[in-house]
Structures are given as C-alpha cells and as structure tokens.
C-alpha cells in the first residue's frame, strides 16, 4: 500500500496508450491497492487511471460517492475497472472537470450522460454496468487516460471552457 506520485502534464507517458491486463496477478492487485490509496489521498479525488502513476495498464478506479455532489446521484460506490470498454453511450452533459495530472486548470467538457461499460472487476470477473451522471463523466475521463487522451484534448473552446485555477485546494 502506497501513495504514488502523479505524473503531471506534459509528461509524455500521459499521452501513451496503455496495454490490456492479461491476468489479475498479485502484482496487479497490489498496483490497484496503490491506485486506490493515491486516489483517496487527493482532495476531493473521485477517480484515477493507472497511467497517471506511470503504470501503462488498462486499469481505472472511480468512486464518485467520495464527493458530496457525486454521493447525491445514482452511483456504484467504488468501482475498479480492468480493461474497460464503453459499449454504448447516450445523451450529453457538460461538467467542469479537474485532473490531478493537470493541476492548474479546470474545463467544461461535454460527455455522454449515460454509458454502458464492459470490464473486469478487481477479482477478474467479467462485468457489464450502466452508469449515469457524474459517475459516467468520471468513467469517461478515466478511460480517456488509457488512450493517452487528456481533458484538455476535449476542450471545445479554450476561451470559454478552460479556466485557470487560482490554487489547487
């Protein structure tokens, strides 16, 4: 168990595509524990992707119940998703997102309102789950990390949608 350092943009590893997890080995399990510790150590943090810690594996964790606003919405609590894929999505919503890897900015990003996700859970069991609202935003944001996509890549207008943080809490 450890809190790992977070890679900060423009670290080139953040733009890499991560590789699928072949098997949930003890090493992968330990890496997941570290990811969860790291996510929980970040103020208000409700999601993390393995490549943010330099581990180029298709693993993300999301827990919107850790934020006040997220907890008020439909959610699955803590989700660990291995090799996740979005099977279907629908609707649209715009939420202001912040990212541990881009600590100086926040941005309004348009995402799907609803997603259907296929993944392995942390025991390696195959799951299909539906997610809506903020949890769906968090899942889409973290899945983007697995393909080297950052929220700034999805900003429609830097003038109206990108905001500099006064300070990172």
């Amino acid at each position, binding site marked *: 168990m450890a809190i790992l350092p977070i890679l900060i943009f423009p670290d080139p590893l953040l733009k890499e595509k991560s590789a699928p997890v072949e098997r949930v080995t003890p090493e992968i399990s330990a890496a997941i524990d570290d990811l969860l510790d790291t996510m929980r150590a970040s103020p208000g943090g409700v999601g993390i992707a393995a490549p943010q810690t330099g581990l180029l594996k298709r693993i993300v964790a999301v827990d919107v119940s850790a934020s006040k606003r997220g907890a008020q919405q439909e959610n699955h609590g803590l989700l660990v998703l291995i090799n996740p894929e979005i099977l279907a999505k629908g609707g649209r919503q715009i939420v*202001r997102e912040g990212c541990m890897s881009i600590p100086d900015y926040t941005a309004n990003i348009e995402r799907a309102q609803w997603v259907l996700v296929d993944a392995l859970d942390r025991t390696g069991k195959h799951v299909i789950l539906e997610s809506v609202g903020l949890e769906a935003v968090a899942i889409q*944001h973290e899945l983007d990390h697995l393909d080297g996509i950052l929220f700034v890549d999805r900003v429609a207008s830097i003038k109206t949608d990108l905001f500099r943080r006064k300070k990172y809490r």
Partner: protein
Amino acid sequence: MGHFSVSVVGKDRPGIVAEVSRILFEQGCNIEDSTCTILSGQFAMILVIHHSKFQAADELGPAFDEVRTKMRLIVTVNALKDEEVVHEKAFAGHPHIISVYGADRPGIVYTVAQELARRKVNITDLNTQVVGAKDRPVYVMVLEVDIPEAVDMKELEKEFGRIRKELSVSITVRPIETLEL
C-alpha cells in the same frame, strides 16, 4: 516594448483576419491572446499583442489606416501596462452560471447586472440573444460570474426574487462545481 489591445469591428466578410494579422505580422507584433465573434453580421475581434519596441498606441495605430479605408473597419489600439496583462481567467470567488430568460423587454440586462455589480459579483462571461417566434420574442441571457465569499447567497436570491416579479423573467443561479478526477 509593450502590450497593446487591438479591437476590430466591421461588416463581416472573408479576409478580415488575414488582413489584420498581416499588418500585425509586418509590424513585428506577437499575438498573445485573441478572440472573435460575429454579432448580427458584424465581425468583432479583440487581440492582446506584444511588440518588442513600440510603447505608445500611436506607434502602431496608423498601420491600420489601410484597412480602415479599404475594408471600412473600426480599429482601436490601446497601450496596456504590463501589470494589466493577466493571461488566464482566474477566479477569486465561487464560479456560478446565471441563466435568465423571459419575454423580451427593456432593462433585463441592466437590472440583473446592476444587482450583481452592487454586490461586487464579477461577470466573466455574458451571452444574450433573442430567440423564439417573431411575434413572441424570448430574451435569453447566460452569465458566468465569480461570486465573492462575502456575498450572502440568500440575500442575492431574495433580490433575484424581486427582479423575477418586476420583469417577469426566470432567473436561475447554479454553482459550477469541479469534478476532481
């Protein structure tokens, strides 16, 4: 060396950006920040530029005489003090979105803006338009504002309640919260 703001307004047509940027390039200016929009067929552009030698607006201003006559553009050049140049939009308070809509009538923007100014709420973005059928125009205004810590939200809501009645408009204030990922 200094910073300047340059604003350009004129009837929209292809080539305005090309001509303005050509002049800036030829004068040795660096465009540091810019945005443009088209309102009812009028092209409007504002730029913050930097020049390694120029200090005063009249060193750069005359370079635009050519497009002033040829393209009938209104071009204004202002010298900026270095400390006035802030590169990003920075929030000091709590960002909120205020949406206002209702039957079109005079004074909607003024009434809402006056109330915000009175409370030192900073408007960081403002869009207004008239939508809907010709005989039943609906006025829509969306503001992004920065609400200082000291503002009593209940008081603000009470004032908006009064404005809602007075102007028969709908006013909704929503916080912009950041999802920390």
